[in-house]
C-alpha cells in the first residue's frame, strides 16, 4: 500500500458516521406529526359508563385541572399493560384521568376495571368508535394530555410506559 491516506481518511469518516448514527438512535422519538397538538380538543357527547347518562365533554373538561384522556378497551392487550401506569398516575391530584372505552362489550369492560382497579375519574363509552375518529385517534390505547383550557398538550399513541409517565408528570407541574 503506497498511499495510506485514503484508507485512513475513509476509516475516520466511517467511524464518524457510525458515532453519529449511534447517537441518532438514542434521539429516536415517537414523533407524530399531528395537527391536533396545541389545539382545543373537539367537543363531544358520550354515554357515561356506570350511570348511562349523557355527558358533555365541555362540562367534563371545565375544571381547573389537567386532564388525561385515555382511550382503552378490555380486548386490547397493551391496555392491560399500561393500566398500572394509569393506576400510579391516578394518585396524582393535579390530573384527572378520563377513560374513553372504545368499541367494547360493557360486561367485559366492567370485569377489566374490577380486576385491575379503576384509575379513572370518569369513564365514557365510545360504542361505535366515532368519538375516537373525531379526536383523531390512531388506535387503542391512545392518550391525550389536556390542560385547563382544553388544549391538547401531548398525545401518546400506543401504551404508556414509565418514560411517558415521567413526561406527563413534567407536563402537569
Amino acid at each position, binding site marked *: 500500500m503506497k498511499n495510506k491516506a485514503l484508507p485512513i481518511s475513509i476509516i475516520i469518516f466511517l467511524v464518524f458516521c457510525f458515532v453519529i448514527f449511534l447517537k441518532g438512535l438514542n434521539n429516536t422519538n415517537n414523533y407524530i406529526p399531528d395537527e391536533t397538538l396545541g389545539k382545543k380538543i373537539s367537543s363531544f357527547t358520550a354515554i357515561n359508563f356506570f350511570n348511562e347518562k349523557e355527558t358533555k365533554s365541555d362540562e367534563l373538561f371545565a375544571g381547573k385541572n389537567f386532564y388525561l384522556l385515555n382511550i382503552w378497551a378490555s380486548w386490547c*392487550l397493551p391496555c392491560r399493560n399500561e393500566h398500572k401506569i394509569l393506576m400510579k398516575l391516578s394518585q396524582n391530584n393535579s390530573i384527572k384521568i378520563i377513560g374513553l372505552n372504545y368499541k367494547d362489550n360493557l360486561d367485559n369492560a366492567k370485569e377489566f376495571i374490577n380486576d385491575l382497579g379503576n384509575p379513572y375519574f370518569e369513564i365514557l363509552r365510545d360504542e361505535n368508535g366515532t368519538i375516537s375518529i373525531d379526536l383523531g385517534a390512531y388506535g387503542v390505547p391512545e392518550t391525550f394530555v389536556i390542560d385547563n383550557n382544553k388544549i391538547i398538550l401531548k398525545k401518546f399513541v400506543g401504551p404508556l410506559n414509565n418514560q411517558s409517565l415521567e413526561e406527563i408528570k413534567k407536563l402537569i407541574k
Partner: protein
Amino acid sequence: MFISQLGFYSLIIGLIFSIIFLPVAYRDLFVNNNLISSNVFSILFFKLFFVLVSFICLIISFVNSDFSNETVYNNSHTTKPLFYKISGTWGNHEGSLLLCLLILVFFIFIFLITSRKEQKKYRIITLLFQEIIIIGFFLFLLITSNPFNHLFPSPKEGLGLNPILQDPILAIHPPILYLGYIGSSIILSSSIAAIIQNQVNNQWAKNLKIWVIISWIFLTIGIVLGSIWAYYELGWGGFWFWDPVENISLMPWLCLTALVHSVIVLEKRSLFATWTLVLSISSFTFSMCGTFLVRSGILNSVHTFANDPSRGIFILFFLFFLIFISLIVFFFFYKEKKIKQKNFLFSKETSILINNWFMMYFLSVVLIGTVYPIFLEVITNEKISVGAPFYSKLFIPFLIPFLFLMSIGPKMAWIRQNVKLFNIKIILLFLLSIFLSYLILFKTEQRTLFVSVLVIFSIYLFFTTIRDFFIKNQINFSQKISHFGFSLLILSIIMNGIFSREVITNIEVGEKHEFNNGTIYFKNINTFKKKNYTSIVGIFKIKENDNEEIYLEPELRIFNQPLIVTSEADIKTNFIADKFLVMNLVKGNDYYNIKYQTKPFMIWIWLSAILMCVGALINFFKRK
C-alpha cells in the same frame, strides 16, 4: 400454536446449518480438485428447506389468525380478507425480515448451482462471505425480532394491519424490492471473492453482470410499484415525494445503474476494475444502510416500522462490520493491474465514465438530502426537513448536460470514435426539438430558461433514442429499448411536472364549484358497509370546457381495526392524462375537502420504467 413452534425451531435448525457451513466450506477450500463437495450442496439445500418451512409456518399462522403469535396479533385481525392475511406476513418488521432471509438463502443456493463453470475457490469464498451475511440476518431475526414470539394468554382478536398497507400492489412491492436489495449482496460477496482470488477480470465481469442486471431489474420494478402505490393510495396525487425511504431505495438503484454500465467496460475492455469494485461494495452497503435507516426508526416516514433502538444498534454494528471487512479486503488484497491501453477522449469508455460521474453526483445529492438532517439533529439538535425544492435545484441543472451526453454517448465506438459532430440530420433533429418545445411551452407560464432548455434536451434525447432503432450503430437491441425507456421516462416526468393542474376546495353535497376552465358538481354521497371497513363514496361530475363530462367517485374508508380513515382517490386514466379526484372529511361539518388534479402522461411514467426493465431482460435472451 404448534405451527408457530415449528416455525421457530426450523429457524434455529437453519441457523445451525449456517454455522456448520462455515468450517465445512472452509475445509473444502483446501481440497485440490475443482468440484465443490456434496456436503456444501446438501447444507445449503437443507438450510433453504428449513427457512422455507419457517416462512410457510408464519404464513399459516397468519391465515389461521393464531393470535398466540405476537407478530400475528400485532398485524392481523380476523375480519381481514384472506389475501391481506397472507400479504400481512411480510407487511411487518419481523415477517419482512424472515422474507429477506428466505431470499438470501435462496440466492446463495441459486449462486451455487449456476456458477458451476467458475473456479472452485472463487465460488467457495463467495459462499463463505454470503454465509456471514446470512448468519448476521439469522441472529438479528432471532435476537431482536423473532417472528414467533408467544403470547399467553392468547388474545381473542388482533390489532389489525394498517389499512393503507391493504393494497394488492403493496402485497408484492416489498418482496420484489427485497429481491433487488438482496441480489446486491451476491454482488458484494463475489467481488470480495474476486479480489481475494485476484481475478478481477473480464470473465468475472461477465458473470457479475448477470447478477447486477437481475438486481437492477427487481429494484427498478420494486421502486415503480412503490411509487404506483403512493400515487393511488396516499392520495397526494404525486408519484415521488423524496420521502427518506424512497430515497433509500434510489441510492442503491443509482449505484447499480452506474455498475451496470461500468461492468460492461470491465467485460469488454478490462478497464475500470477498481471502480467496478467500489460500486459493487457500495451497492450492498447502500441497501443495508437503507435497512438500517428504515428499521431503526431513526427516520420518520410512511414506512416506519416499530421503533426499537436495540434493532437499530444491531443493524448498525452489522452494517459497519460488513463495510470494514469489505474495506480491509479491498485495501489489503486488491492488486490493481496496470493495463497499458490507449484511451481516447471520444470513446465508449469515456462516455460510460461520464455517465458514472453523473450517477455519483445524483447519488451524493440524494445521500446528503437524506442523511444530512440526521447529522444536523445529532450535532446541533435542529430539525430540518429536506424536500422536493432541494432536489429540483440540484438535479435539474445537471440533468441537462446528462441528457445531452446520453444522446451522444451510446453511439460511440469502443477505444476510439471518429467524431463528425455536425451531421446534418442531427442538427435538423435538434432544430425540430427546439421548435416542438417552443410549441409545448408557448401556452404555459413556465417559460424560464432552465425549463425550456430541459424540455428541448429531453425531446432531443427522445428523438435520438427513437432514431437509434432505425439506424445501424454501436448500440445493441436491449440497450436501445432501455435507453428509449429512460428518455420516455424523463420526458413524461418533465411534461407531468409542467402540465399538472390542481383545484382544491371545500364542497357540500349538491353544490358546484367553478374553476378556470370547468365545473365540479358534487352529485351525491353513498355509504356502504364492507367486511372490515365502512365505505363512503362521493359521486362527482366534472365538466371541463371542451371535453366530455366525466364522473369520478372517490372513496373514504373508515377501518375499524385499527381505527384509521383512508381516502381512495378515483382516477380516470388514459394515454394523455389522468384525472385524479380525492376527498377528505372536514371535521365537524357537512363539507368535504376535495382535490381535483389533471396529471398528464402519468401512465407513460409507469410504462417507460417497465420498458427499461424489459430492455434489461432482453439481455438474457440473446446469448450468442
